[in-house]
């Protein structure tokens, strides 16, 4: 193995082990920042030693042993933490006597709980949304600061600062390392799901930049979602979110054209959808529904996505059912965006005039004032009604509102098509 092979092998180990490692260390030292530093130190040690010694048989246990030893050294130096040191020192000294597999089993006993605690800590409401996203990707996704920065198109220093501040905030607020219970659980879980879905969406329909999709970010979000589904198997909305992401991700390769342009759902070549992910998504949806979660917001969105996934052709889509599901979604989580989507579904099920009636009512909605999809949808409905010049104005407006370069081009193309149609003599239409 060459040195660079070993480095790549260590990266792979880090990706597999870092979350478990950090989670276990937070339980010991009760500080996310310190735990991550300890884990990073262990990684540095691995980078120094493994190129010569080779990757150990049980790399996770190896890293944990190194990090724990560091923790003990640190505490020994710090007289103020004498009590904790005694506890820890005892624990680690005793374990060092034993063989490695036993140590690994001991970590395994707690690892699920610790990971779940770490998820809730990284997504704690005391942190800003950006901080939650950065910290979750860093601590649970095993991404480097640089990778996060590139994914979100912000300078690396900004992400680094966000993470440092987030760790400080968690320490200052004395956020306990625990899984919330009772009434608090629902609210805290929805914060976790929001963070994961935010990451997914940034990959699925980038809000900024020149690429329409960033598949790696979707894969990170899916991985986090699948991990969470194992950690909290009784929570229907977790499965609902996983179902939604699996089904949406199944369209990934169909929604980008040869030169990187977006292809909208109804124009996609359905043969290119990923059947492995469709099947996984439908199974996850069934699980959410079996747990009594059919009317959770994510499960409802997944059910809508499933309607598209089940339709062999766009023409076979059950639009009336989709409109009804949007109606139900509007009941459990009312939002003008949901209404807008219901308008699209109504337009498809009962004709563009029915859709336009609802969409027109949304024009005074302040929450949609700068939202490019409102004029996009309105433009689409107007075009279908043959009101080409009104449609053109809407598409141009939408193009001026989106921040994504690929999407802007698509909208300008549609505006141009409407302009041609408006200019053409009536008999040639």
């Amino acid at each position, binding site marked *: 193995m060459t040195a660079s*092979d070993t480095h*790549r*092998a260590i*990266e*792979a*180990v880090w*990706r*597999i082990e870092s979350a478990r490692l950090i989670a276990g260390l937070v339980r010991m030292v009760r500080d996310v920042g310190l735990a991550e530093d300890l884990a990073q130190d262990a990684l540095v040690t691995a980078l120094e030693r493994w190129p010569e010694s080779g990757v150990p048989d049980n*790399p996770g246990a190896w890293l944990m042993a190194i990090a724990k030893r560091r923790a003990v050294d640190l505490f020994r130096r710090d007289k103020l933490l004498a009590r904790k040191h005694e506890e820890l020192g005892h624990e680690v000294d005793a374990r060092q006597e034993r063989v490695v597999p036993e140590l690994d089993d001991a970590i395994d006993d707690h690892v*699920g709980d610790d990971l779940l605690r770490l998820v809730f800590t990284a997504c704690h409401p005391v942190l800003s949304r950006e901080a939650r996203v950065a910290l979750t990707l860093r601590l649970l996704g095993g991404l480097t600061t640089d990778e996060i920065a590139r994914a979100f198109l912000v300078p690396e220093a900004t992400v680094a600062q966000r993470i440092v501040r987030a760790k400080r905030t968690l320490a200052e607020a004395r956020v306990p390392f625990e899984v919330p219970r009772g009434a608090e659980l629902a609210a805290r879980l929805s914060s976790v799901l929001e963070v994961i879905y935010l990451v997914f969406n940034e990959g699925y329909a980038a809000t900024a930049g020149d690429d329409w999709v960033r598949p790696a970010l979707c*894969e990170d979000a*899916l*991985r*986090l*979602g*699948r*991990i969470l589904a*194992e*950690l909290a198997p009784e929570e229907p909305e977790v499965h609902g979110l996983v179902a939604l992401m699996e089904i949406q991700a199944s369209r990934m*390769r169909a929604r980008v054209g040869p030169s990187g342009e977006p292809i909208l759902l109804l124009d996609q*070549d*359905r*043969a*290119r*959808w990923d*059947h*492995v992910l*469709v*099947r*996984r998504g439908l199974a996850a949806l069934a699980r959410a529904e079996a747990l009594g979660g059919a009317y959770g917001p994510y499960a409802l969105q997944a059910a809508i996505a499933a309607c598209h996934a*089940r339709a*062999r052709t766009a023409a076979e889509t059950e639009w009336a059912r989709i409109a009804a599901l949007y109606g139900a979604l509007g009941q459990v989580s009312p939002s003008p965006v949901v209404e807008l989507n219901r308008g699209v579904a109504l337009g498809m099920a009962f004709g563009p005039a029915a859709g336009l009636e609802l969409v027109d009512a949304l024009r005074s909605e302040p929450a949609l004032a700068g939202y490019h999809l409102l004029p996009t949808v309105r433009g689409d409905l107007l075009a279908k009604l043959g009101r080409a010049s009104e449609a053109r104005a809407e598409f141009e407006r939408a193009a001026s509102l989106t921040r994504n370069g690929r999407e802007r081009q698509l909208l300008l193309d549609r505006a141009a098509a409407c302009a041609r149609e408006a200019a053409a003599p009536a008999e040639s239409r």
Partner: protein
Amino acid sequence: MRFMMLMLPKGYETATPGTMPDAKAVAAMMKYNESLQRAGVLLALDGLHPPSMGARVSFAGGKPKVTDGPFAEAKEVVGGYWLIQVKSREEAIAWASRCPASDDEVIEVRQVQEFSDFPADVQDAAAGFEQMQTQGGREA
């Protein structure tokens, strides 16, 4: 990227019909499968009955010819597979290395071809193949 980890158990090429792994090996393997699932990397997995219950279809001279298993010439045969989604070849190898496999088992790690790996002419030719995959998936 996706990888298939193909399990090649020595001796499976001559295993009698209905041969099953022993309960202890299955328990260890289940624990491993769970670790793949918990890490969010497992997409699919299956175990296969021995070749003695299967058949081979060969095409010498452009005509299909069926041979019932076991196959005297086979040196190694697939016993099962895992389909995983990971970030790198190294990560796939790291996962394969963690398998509680026995002395006479080998895991072959192979990357799944993505549509985008193909040059344009192959993409055109393969379009029908993808459609088959999708329809198969829906009917299953």
